[in-house]
C-alpha cells in the first residue's frame, strides 16, 4: 500500500527536489561570487579588508545552519520583507560564501608567488595578473574541494523546511502526516533521491574538472 502511495506521490516529491535544486543553485551562486571575492581580498587586500574577510568567515562558519535560517527568517525579515525562500538563500548562501572563501583562498595560495612576480615584471597590473594568471589556475584546482561544498550544501537545503520552504523533506513529511505513519519507507525514498542528485552533481563536477584540465601542465593538470 505504501508503495502505491509513494508512486502516486512521486511527482510531489520530485517537485520538492526541484525546489531544493533551485535553492541549491541560488545559494551556491551567491556563495561563489562572495566567496571568491572574499578569498581575493583575504590574499591580496589591504589589512582592513583581510580583517573583514576573516571576521565574516569566522562568524558564518561558527553558527549552525539551522540557527542562521531562523535568524534570517525572523531577524532580517523584521526590517526587510523577504520570503522564506530568499531568507534561506541568504542564510545558507552567506554561510557557503564563508566555506567557499577558504577553498579559493587555499587554491590561490597554492599558486607559486613567482608567477605573480613574473606577471608584474612583464608589466601586468595586479588585478590583471590575478584575473589572467592566478585565477585560471586556482579555480581549476578548486573544483575538487568544491565538490565537498556542493554535497554538503545539497544536504543543507533539507534544513530550509524549518522556515517554511516546501522542499523535498517537507514534501516527505506531508506524505507521512497524511497517512499518519510510514516514516521509514518515505524517508528511504527521500534518502535515495538526495543520493541520486548528489551523485549526478558530483559526476558533472568531476567531468568538468577533467575537461578543464590543462594537458601537460605541471600543476593542476593531474586530472
Amino acid at each position, binding site marked *: 500500500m505504501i508503495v502505491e502511495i509513494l508512486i*502516486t*506521490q512521486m*511527482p*510531489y516529491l520530485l*517537485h520538492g527536489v526541484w525546489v531544493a535544486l*533551485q535553492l541549491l*543553485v*541560488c545559494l551556491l*551562486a*551567491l556563495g*561563489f*561570487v562572495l566567496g571568491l571575492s572574499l578569498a581575493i581580498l583575504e590574499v591580496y587586500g589591504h589589512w582592513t579588508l583581510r580583517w573583514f574577510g576573516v571576521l565574516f568567515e569566522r562568524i558564518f562558519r561558527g553558527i549552525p545552519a539551522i540557527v542562521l535560517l531562523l535568524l534570517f527568517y*525572523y531577524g532580517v*525579515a*523584521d526590517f526587510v*520583507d*523577504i*520570503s522564506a*525562500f*530568499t531568507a534561506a*538563500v541568504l542564510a545558507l548562501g552567506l554561510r557557503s560564501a564563508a566555506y567557499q572563501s577558504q577553498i579559493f583562498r587555499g587554491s590561490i595560495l597554492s599558486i607559486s608567488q613567482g608567477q605573480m612576480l613574473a606577471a608584474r615584471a612583464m608589466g601586468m597590473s595586479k588585478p590583471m595578473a590575478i*584575473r*589572467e594568471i592566478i*585565477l*585560471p589556475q586556482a*579555480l581549476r584546482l578548486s573544483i575538487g574541494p568544491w565538490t565537498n561544498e556542493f554535497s554538503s550544501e545539497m544536504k543543507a537545503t533539507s534544513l530550509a*523546511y*524549518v*522556515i*517554511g520552504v*516546501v522542499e523535498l523533506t*517537507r514534501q516527505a*513529511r*506531508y506524505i*507521512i*502526516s*497524511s*497517512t*499518519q*505513519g510510514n*516514516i521509514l519507507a518515505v524517508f528511504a525514498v527521500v534518502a535515495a533521491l538526495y543520493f541520486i542528485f548528489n551523485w549526478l552533481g558530483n559526476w558533472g563536477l568531476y567531468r568538468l574538472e577533467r575537461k578543464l584540465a590543462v594537458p601537460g601542465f605541471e600543476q593542476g593538470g593531474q586530472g
Partner: protein
Amino acid sequence: MGRLLSKLAVGAVAAASLIGGAGAASAEPLVAGVEASFPPWAYVESGEYKGIAIDAMRAIAEDQGLEVEFRDLPWPSLIPALAKGRIDLLVTGLNITEERNEVLDFSIPWWENDDEVLVPLDSDLNVVTALCCGATVGAQGGATQLQWLEDNLGANEDVDVTLRSYEDYVTAVEDMGAGRLDAVVTSTDTAEDFIAKDRPVKIVGTIQQNQPQALAVQKGDPKELLGKLNAGIMNIYRSGEWEEIVRQYSPQSTIRPIPASMPDYVDAYQEPIPGYSE
C-alpha cells in the same frame, strides 16, 4: 577564463532574479498560516491543502468575500509568525490558552477537544499505569497536551513519569511503536485519526479538557478580520456546510454547537464580540 567568469555571472544574475521573483508575491490576498501535517485539521495530499480547518476557511472566505492563500509553516513557527505579522491569520486546530491569548486574538471557538491517552494495540497498560509508575509518555512540543502533562504529572514528584516532546504526533506514535514510549497523549481528533488510518494504537482513557479551538489573528486585530471570521463561522455553521466538512474528514467526531465554551480570560470574547454579538 573570461568566458567562464561571465557565465558564472549570468548564473548569479539568474539566481538573483529567481529570488526576486519568489519574493515579489502580491500582497493582496490574506495569508493564512497552517501547519500542514496536522490531519484532520490541515494537511497536504497530492499537492493540495486539505482538512477541516482548510475547507472551513475556504467556505468562510467565500461567504465573506475574502481572498485567502495558505502558507505552510512548521508548528513552532506559526504563533511567532502571526505575532510578527508575517501571516494574517492562523488556520488550524488551534487550542485557546491563556498564554496564546497574550500574543494573539481568537475568533469564536468552533471546536472543543479532550485529550486521549494512546498506547500500543498490544499493551497491557491502563489509564492509570500508562501515566505513572515509571512510564515514559510523549506529546508534541509546544502543544497543550505536553503543557498539561508537565504541569500535572511532571511537576508532581509522587508521579513517576518521564516526558518526551516530539516535533509532531506521527513521530511520537512511531516511537511508541518502536517501544521507546509507553503512551502518547494527544487531542481527541488526532487520536481518532490515527485509529481511522489503522495505526496499531488504542485509546485507554480520556482526559476531559473541554479545550476550545478557534482561528486566530494578530493581537489587536489590526486588519479587522475578527468580525468577518466570526460572522463567517456562524454562517457556515447555520447553513450546515460546517457539518458536511467535518463529516468528510472526521466521520467519527461529535459536532459540538458553535460557539463552543468561551473562556473568560480571552480578550476577544469581551462583549460585544465583533461579527457575533451585534
